[in-house]
């Protein structure tokens, strides 16, 4: 800076800020406006695949424990028992099925990695983009079976894939 003060670079910087100022001050319908989304008055919709919360479809769960084993944080707690269900055809033997007693996901530990959703062989776990479930008490972040079942209503359809993809609609 000492010596010859060259003005153009400094002026260009001022121009950039002035341009942003005028752009932010023009109303939205003319293409201006700030980039701020005033949460909670306005909310942005997250994309379909966003990893917000995990939902459980209890009917599909067979207590295979694959999700609990593959969680990096070991935050899924599962307990189940075996029951005898009626045979499929008349005259057959009663089937042993697993019924899930307890299926808790501790969202205080969950890393939102999605490995549990991916490894489930029976499609019992789904991702939902819901993210507004913060609680004042940490203990309330342990979502039990019923609460996880409630999240199923918020699970969206899988998005269509780009042109050139191999399989269609794989979640």
């Amino acid at each position, binding site marked *: *800076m*000492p*010596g010859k*003060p060259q003005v153009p670079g*400094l002026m260009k*910087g*001022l121009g*950039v*800020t*002035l341009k*942003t*100022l005028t*752009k*932010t*001050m023009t109303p939205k319908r003319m293409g201006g406006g*700030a*980039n*701020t989304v*005033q949460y909670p008055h306005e909310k942005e919709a997250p994309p379909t695949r966003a990893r917000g919360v995990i939902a459980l479809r209890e009917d599909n769960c067979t207590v295979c424990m694959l999700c609990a084993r593959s969680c990096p944080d070991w935050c899924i707690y599962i307990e189940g028992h075996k029951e005898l269900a009626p045979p499929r055809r008349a005259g057959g033997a009663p089937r042993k099925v697993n019924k899930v007693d307890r299926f808790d996901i501790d969202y205080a530990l969950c890393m939102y990695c999605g490995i549990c959703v991916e490894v489930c062989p029976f499609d019992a776990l789904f991702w939902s983009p819901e993210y507004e479930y913060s609680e004042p008490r940490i203990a309330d972040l342990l979502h039990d079976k019923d609460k996880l079942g409630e999240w199923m209503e918020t699970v969206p359809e899988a998005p269509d894939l780009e042109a050139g993809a191999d399989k269609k609609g794989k979640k």
Partner: protein
Amino acid sequence: MIGVDVPYWAQSLLRVLGGTVAVLLPAGTIVYLFLFKMMSFMQSRLGPMEAGPYGSMQLFAEVGKWLQKEDIQPQKADKQIFKLAPLIVLVSTFLLVAVVPFGPDAYFTNFDAGVFYMLAVSSISTLGILIAGWSSANKYSLLGGLRAAGQLIAYELPMVLAVLGVVIQAETMNMQGIVERQNAGEIFGWNGLGNPYILTQFIGFVIFMIAVQAELTQTPFDMPIAESELVSGYMTEYSGFRFLIFFIAEFATAGVFALIASVLFLGGWGVPFSWFGWHTIDDVDDWMNIGGPLIMLTKMLVLTFLIMWIRFSYPRFREDQLQRFAWKVLIPLALLNIMVTAILKVMF
């Protein structure tokens, strides 16, 4: 003051109230309008929107927040000086505003050495900053205070020299007189615009604004604060009420310097006298005592916009670059300006 005969104690009370308003109103306006809103708009965001409509109550919320904070003093700090430092900085602002005229009769004091007093008093804040940095018993604050001392002293000179050009052209050091000369003057015989000294003293104006930016320790001259290195420099150890005083003092001083610059260079509280057919200051109507402060407010906002615009756009100088800029560029330019002004004054 204005035709009404008030006893002296009432006059003093009015002056005190008026001074407080004259200091705090610019501070509040500048903080809300420029620091909260303009900075946010320049950064493509909205700024505070929740407190009051469009965030207008945010300043009061902040004041309340700071007031309710704990008054922390470092154990090794020099207690009395630690407490005294913010007050010194604020007092200099109040002293400065005493000499700024707001209208033909709306002023706090009007004496012949107005400019001289103003330049002298503006250096008091340097003391406050230096002892804030020293008494905080914190190495970061010490660094900030030392940098501030060097910088503020270095930039006093360009400010003084820039103002000297105005004084030479106005032939008076009385602030009210400078306003009168500008508004009643003429440019080559045409008095449609008066003779605002920004036209003839443009270099002086630029030097003055740069020096003011440095005196306020605003970016690009904010080495003493240097937020990313020194975490607030000399203000690091101050919390709560004392920090609030520093904060108010910073923006109040910005406003007062803008007021002074508008008096010296933009014609102060007046509009060109020829628009209303006045010739001297005694001709000016009384309604100008209401209109004058409003005009001053507008001019102050314009100049503060400039100061803040530069603050939000540029990175900061390093200390030695700062000093080099002041001593090797600004002071020779200012001296040149004075020489040219004096020569032209004698010739015309």
